[in-house]
C-alpha cells in the first residue's frame, strides 16, 4: 500500500515548498455547521439585495483559491485543519466587505517574499475587521495569493462552532510551537504585536502605535523569517471609542467594553463598523539575525525598527488619503 505522502503530519521544512499543491475549492463542505449556515444566510441576503454582486467575486475567489498554496490532503484538510472548501463561503463574505463595504485599496503587495513570512500589522477599531481585511487582501490583491494564518487566543478552541470555524479558515492556537511549525513549513503568519492594547484603545489615541510585544521578533529570529510590516489606515475610524468601561468588561469577562457613537446605544446593530475606507500598505520585508533568546533590550531595538517602518507607512497612508469615508 502506498503511504499517503501528502498527508504526512508535517512535511520537512526544507523540502516543504515542493509539496505545496493547489486545491479544488469549488465543492461545498460536507460539514456545514451553524456558523457556516449563518454565513451562507448573510451571503444569500446580500445576493438578494444586490443581484449579481457575487458573479465577479465568485469567479475571482475560485481562481485565487485554486492557486492558494496549501498542503491539503486526500480528505481536503491541511495538517492544521484548514479547509479550502470550508473557507470559500467565509471568503465570499470577506470579499464582499473588502470590495464593497471597506472598498480596500492595497499597495505594496509585491513586497511579499516567497516562502515563510511573518506579517506584522497594526490593530485598531474594537472589532478585528482589519485582520479579516488583511487576510482577504492577501488572497485577492497579492500576487501570488497567500493565506495568512492568524494566531488565535488560547480560548478560541473552547468556543463551539467559532473554534472549529477558525481552524477551518486557517487560524491556529497562538502557541509558540504552532507559530514555529507554520513558519518552518514556509507558511505566512500574521501577528498583531499591539494585541488588545491596539484593538481596544480609545479615540484620543488613534493612529498611535501602542507598545509592541517582543514574542514575534524572537520567533522570527528562531526561524530565520523575514518580517513584512503592514499598516491599515481607516480602521481607527470604524468604531471610535469615546471611553472604555473596564470594570464592566472585567465583569463580563471581555477584553474591553467600548462606548462608541453607536454602541451600545443601537444594540447589536451598533457593533457594525462604520463604512470607512481602508488603505492597506505593505512595506519592504525586514530581515533580522540574532539570538532569539537575547535580552529584552536587544530584541526591543529590533522591534523598534519594525515599529519605525510601520510608523512611516502609517504617516504616508494618512497623508495620502483623501478622507475617512472615501
Amino acid at each position, binding site marked *: 500500500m502506498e*503511504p499517503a505522502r501528502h498527508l504526512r503530519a508535517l512535511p520537512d521544512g526544507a523540502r516543504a515548498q515542493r509539496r505545496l499543491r493547489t486545491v479544488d475549492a469549488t465543492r461545498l463542505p460536507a460539514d456545514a455547521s451553524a456558523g457556516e449556515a449563518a454565513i451562507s444566510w448573510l451571503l444569500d441576503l446580500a445576493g438578494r439585495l444586490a443581484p449579481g454582486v457575487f458573479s465577479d467575486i465568485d469567479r475571482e475567489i475560485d481562481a485565487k483559491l485554486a492557486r492558494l498554496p496549501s498542503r491539503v490532503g486526500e480528505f481536503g484538510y491541511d495538517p492544521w*485543519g484548514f479547509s479550502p472548501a470550508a473557507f470559500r463561503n467565509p471568503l465570499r463574505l470577506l470579499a464582499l466587505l473588502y470590495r464593497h463595504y471597506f472598498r480596500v485599496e492595497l499597495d505594496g503587495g509585491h513586497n511579499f517574499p516567497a516562502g515563510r513570512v511573518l506579517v506584522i500589522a497594526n490593530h485598531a477599531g474594537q472589532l478585528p475587521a482589519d485582520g479579516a481585511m488583511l487576510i482577504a487582501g492577501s488572497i485577492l490583491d497579492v500576487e501570488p495569493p497567500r493565506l495568512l494564518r492568524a494566531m488565535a487566543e488560547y*480560548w478560541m478552541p473552547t468556543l*463551539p462552532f467559532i473554534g472549529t470555524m477558525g481552524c477551518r479558515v486557517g487560524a491556529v492556537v497562538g502557541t509558540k510551537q504552532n507559530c514555529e511549525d507554520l513558519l518552518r513549513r514556509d507558511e505566512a503568519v500574521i501577528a498583531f504585536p499591539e494585541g488588545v492594547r491596539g484593538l481596544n484603545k480609545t479615540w484620543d489615541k488613534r493612529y498611535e502605535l501602542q507598545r509592541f510585544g517582543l514574542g514575534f521578533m524572537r520567533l522570527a529570529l528562531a526561524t530565520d523569517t523575514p518580517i513584512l510590516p503592514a499598516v491599515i489606515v481607516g480602521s481607527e475610524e470604524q468604531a471610535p471609542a469615546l471611553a472604555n468601561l473596564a470594570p464592566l468588561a472585567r465583569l463580563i469577562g471581555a477584553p474591553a467594553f467600548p462606548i462608541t457613537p453607536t454602541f451600545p446605544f443601537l444594540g447589536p446593530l451598533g457593533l457594525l463598523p462604520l463604512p470607512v475606507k481602508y488603505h492597506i500598505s505593505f512595506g519592504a520585508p525586514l530581515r533580522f539575525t540574532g539570538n532569539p533568546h537575547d535580552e529584552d533590550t536587544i530584541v526591543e531595538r529590533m522591534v523598534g525598527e519594525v515599529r519605525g517602518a510601520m510608523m512611516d507607512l502609517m504617516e504616508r497612508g494618512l497623508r495620502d488619503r483623501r478622507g475617512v469615508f472615501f
Partner: protein
Amino acid sequence: MAKILITGAAGGQGHLVARLAAARGDEVVGVDRVPMAGFEDGTQVRAYVVDLMRRKFEDVVRHERPDAVVHLAFVRHFRTDLATRHKINVAGTRLLLDYCAEYGVRQLVVVSSAYAYGALPENPSYMHEDFALNVSRTYPEVRDIAEVDTLCSAFLWQHPEVRTAILRPVNTLGDSVHSAIGGYLKQSYVPTILGFDPMMQFLHEEDLARAILLSVERKLRGIFNVAGPGAVPLHVAIEQVGGTQVPLPEVALRPIVRRLFGFGLYPVPPGAIDFIKFPCTVSDERFRAATGFEPRWSLRDIFERFRTERERSAA
C-alpha cells in the same frame, strides 16, 4: 536473530507483534495473563500464561534471558475497577523494569500512548516529545498512562545499559486491537459534541507493530511519538468508517456519559469526552528521522478496512 519477549502477547497488538517478529526470524516468547490464541499461519511462539505481578514472571525472564522486551501488558479499558487497572499498569511496569535491569535485557520498547499529553484547548497542533504529560488534568481515570510513561523515562536515564524506547502512538485502528477509539467509531450513531470537530490522527495496528519492531531493530533509545499517515477532523473519520454523527450539546453529553459510566453502561468515563472536543495531535518527526519509518496504510485504507470489518461483523 534476537530473542524477543512480548508482554501482553495475547492482546490484539501483542499477537500482531509476535507474528511479525517470528516472521522476521526472531525467537518469540509471549507472556500474558490469559492463554494466547494460536496462529493460523503456524507461527511458533513460546507462550507463558503468567501475571506480571507474580513471582513466576521473574522466573520466566530469568530462564528465558531475552535480548529484547516489548511491553504491551496494559489494561486500557474500564471493565476492571480503576484501582486494579492502575495497579496492574503502574506496579506491573515497575516490576518489569526491575527485571530488565536485573537480567541483562539490552533493548526495551514500551508502548505508551499519545493520550498521555491530554486533549487540551491550548495544545499546539503538533506536540513534540518534550511537551508536558497533561492528561490527568482533565482525564484523571487514565493518569496511569502518564505515570507508566514517566516511570519508563526515569528508567531510560537510570539504566543506560538497557536501551529503552518509549513509543507514544496515536489512535490505533485495525482488526485485532480493541481500542477505545475503535469502540467509539464502531457505533452506528456516534455521539459528538455540538460545535466541535478536532483534528485526529490515526495509525494502523500493522504499522504500529512495524514501528515497534523497527525500534528493536534500530536499538532505539529515547521517547518517540508515532503518528501514522496524517490528521483529519473527527467527522471525516466517522463518515469514512460509515457511521452517523449525532452532535449533542456538551451540557447534555457530559452528565449522560457520567451516569451511564457509573452504572457500567458506557465504556469510558466523561473525561474521555475531551478527546473528541480538543486536539491531541503529535509530531512524529523524531521517530521518522531516527528510523526512516513510513506508514504503509494511508488514512483512506485504514478507514476502508475498518468499515469493511464492521459491516462484516454486523452481518
